[in-house]
């Protein structure tokens, strides 16, 4: 159900995504994350189009971590920051991190290829669902608005294409 993929640029590492619906303790989870007690990124899945979007953010985050260029203070906050189309860190957390009222959460963990991180799932009071289900949680209208996607752009590619392209180029736009 969870999805573990490799980062070609960092062959010893893996990225595992886990998705939960019917989450009842979002406030508690968010608080734990803020206190640095959770070893993972807690993402609001309504802003996600596809697991690939998370992988792009994670890849960039790990790269910046290894080259000492992160804009935020931790790998996991960097992943959340990379999802955002803007360079404002607090806005990124507000839009892409989980809020107290959320009832779904995507958890992303970066780990060595031989480790698996099961303990975070235990902290979530919710139902785990396949990661691929994230598209059913996406809010395309909200995503298009936040990423400022033009109607013409949707003709030359998918929503995922538009989102990923902005994530990848925001440093120079």
């Amino acid at each position, binding site marked *: 159900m969870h999805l573990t993929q490799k980062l070609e640029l960092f062959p010893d590492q893996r990225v595992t995504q886990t998705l939960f619906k019917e989450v009842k303790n979002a406030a508690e989870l968010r608080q734990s994350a803020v206190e640095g007690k959770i070893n993972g990124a807690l993402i609001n899945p309504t802003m996600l189009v596809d697991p690939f979007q998370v992988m792009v953010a994670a890849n960039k985050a790990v790269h910046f971590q*290894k*080259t000492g260029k992160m804009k935020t203070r931790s790998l996991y906050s960097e992943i959340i920051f990379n999802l955002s189309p803007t360079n404002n860190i607090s806005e990124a957390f507000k839009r892409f991190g989980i809020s107290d009222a959320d009832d779904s959460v995507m958890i992303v963990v970066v780990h060595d290829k031989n480790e698996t991180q099961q303990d975070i799932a235990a902290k979530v009071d919710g139902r785990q669902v396949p990661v691929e289900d994230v598209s059913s949680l996406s809010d395309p209208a909200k995503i298009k608005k936040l990423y400022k996607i033009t109607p013409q752009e949707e003709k030359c590619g998918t929503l995922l294409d538009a989102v990923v392209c902005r994530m*990848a180029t925001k440093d120079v736009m």
Partner: protein
Amino acid sequence: MVLNHSMAVPELLSKAELMKQGAEARVYRVQFLGKPAIVKERFPKRYRHPVLDEKLTHRRAVQEVRSILRCRRAGISAPVVYFVDYTSNCIFMEEILGSSTVRDYITSTQQSDSCQEQKLEQLAQRVGQVLAKMHDEDVIHGDLTTSNLLLRHGQEDKVSDLVLIDFGLSYISALPEDKGVDLYVLEKAFLSTHPNTEALFQKLLKSYTVSSKKSSAVIKKLDEVRLRGRKRSMVG
């Protein structure tokens, strides 16, 4: 002391499949996060002064990426950018699968007999339209050739999609002169690569003129630039 672990991309490329090597960059094919991708590596040029080389290389990568996004926002197909490593000046982007260059299309269509003229005219019209749209967005491609225009074959009967690639020399400009030069570059490349296509290129320009909102000034400049070219009589 910050350790610089920026060797991840060069490491990956050392084992990757090299597709093309140009004067400016090497293009590799890789799998990237589960998708087929192209990596365009702008390698250091030792014939340049190192400080200038780094500035120029970096600038070209930035320009390429900005122009791609700008084109996509206007509805012009260009490869999706997945990741940019500014330390090695490598751009990871979508591999346009199932495509051929307009160059190959023209060549092979000229060799076959069926509906040659009609197919080529249709192509010229579409290229003119896409370039008009691009120039209306004030994007100057900078290296327009028939090898930098791809036709992505759609499913079955669907018309193929025209995709622009190689924005390394591109920049933003509203000046008709810059757009005129952009077309001039294409004209020279077009006519030298595809013999006896003067009429076809005229159709392309006609389509451009009709499709672009600012075309008259651009075509005027194009005519002026043509008169300026090499081996031109400098009379009167």
